[in-house]
């Protein structure tokens, strides 16, 4: 079972990796690797997706995830404690798939490069994500009851759950499609 699984995974990684190299932003319609690796772990999806969108591990580096998973009892003012066995399993999943441990995903690479060694707890505190959203006025985020916070990625990025954050897929509640000009 194991022997069979490994070459298949390796093949999948090759295909996804090659696509992301070949495709370019202008070829938006072509099939290519998503911006970050999508979540395929059911335990993670249910445990870390119950209060908010299940953020992809590739949105932060390993050290950020380790810090976050060490402080779940006070998780941004919330209690997100897990039983120890689940906490360990999910930490391994997050670290293995963190931005600094995956290859071939553009946004992960860009987030990582922007960090300059910093290891913030929030995706919304990484310079790359901050910079990408710095033109969006507060009325569109904070004063928008269907968004509330920039942390609510899936409210605007309609295909965020597939790991895709392309501009043409953005649809902001109450505002609509995003035209960048």
């Amino acid at each position, binding site marked *: 079972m194991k022997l069979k699984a490994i070459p298949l995974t390796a093949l999948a990684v090759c295909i996804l990796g090659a696509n992301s190299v070949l495709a370019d932003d202008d070829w938006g319609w072509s099939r290519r690797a998503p911006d970050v690796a999508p979540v395929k772990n059911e335990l993670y999806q249910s445990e870390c997706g119950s209060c908010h969108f299940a953020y992809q591990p590739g949105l932060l580096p390993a050290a950020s995830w380790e810090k976050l998973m060490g402080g779940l009892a006070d998780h941004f003012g*919330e209690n997100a*404690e897990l039983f120890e066995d689940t906490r360990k399993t999910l930490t391994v999943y997050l670290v293995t798939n963190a931005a600094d441990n995956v290859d071939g995903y553009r946004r992960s690479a860009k987030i990582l490069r922007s960090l300059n060694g910093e290891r913030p707890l929030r995706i919304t505190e990484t310079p790359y994500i901050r910079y990408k959203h710095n033109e969006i006025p507060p009325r569109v985020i904070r004063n928008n009851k269907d968004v509330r916070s920039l942390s609510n990625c899936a409210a605007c990025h309609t295909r965020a759950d597939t790991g895709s954050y392309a501009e043409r897929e953005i649809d902001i509640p109450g505002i609509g499609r995003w035209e960048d000009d």
Partner: protein
Amino acid sequence: MNRVIMIAALGLAATAAVPAMAADVVDERLAAYQAEGAGPFDAKKGKAMWTQQFTHAKADKPRSCATCHTDDPRAQGKHAKTGKAIKPLAPSANPERLTEVREIEKWFMRNCKWTVGRKCTAQEKGNLLSYLRDL
């Protein structure tokens, strides 16, 4: 005591089978709380606790179970901070609820600490589960 063990065993058997029934899992939990010295359980007290407003050092304003789950556990709730929808908690409205021991105890651990400022006692958990089951 024998009866308690019987009920617990039945409850466990029910948990292992898929799909589990909320009624069986709640029975198993109640038996376990009784084994810890709690009981008898009172759904009315559970209902009162559901909407009771708690203040504690970490709460900027009073908190209750209804803050996220609304006054009626049969209704869809909404997470107080993230706004994410929370499916109804009462098994009568959502048969998937109260069907997994670990899920129940994990959310009790989190929600009691956040709402009440401490863990809930076995007595309180028994009252709350009786309330939710009977709705």
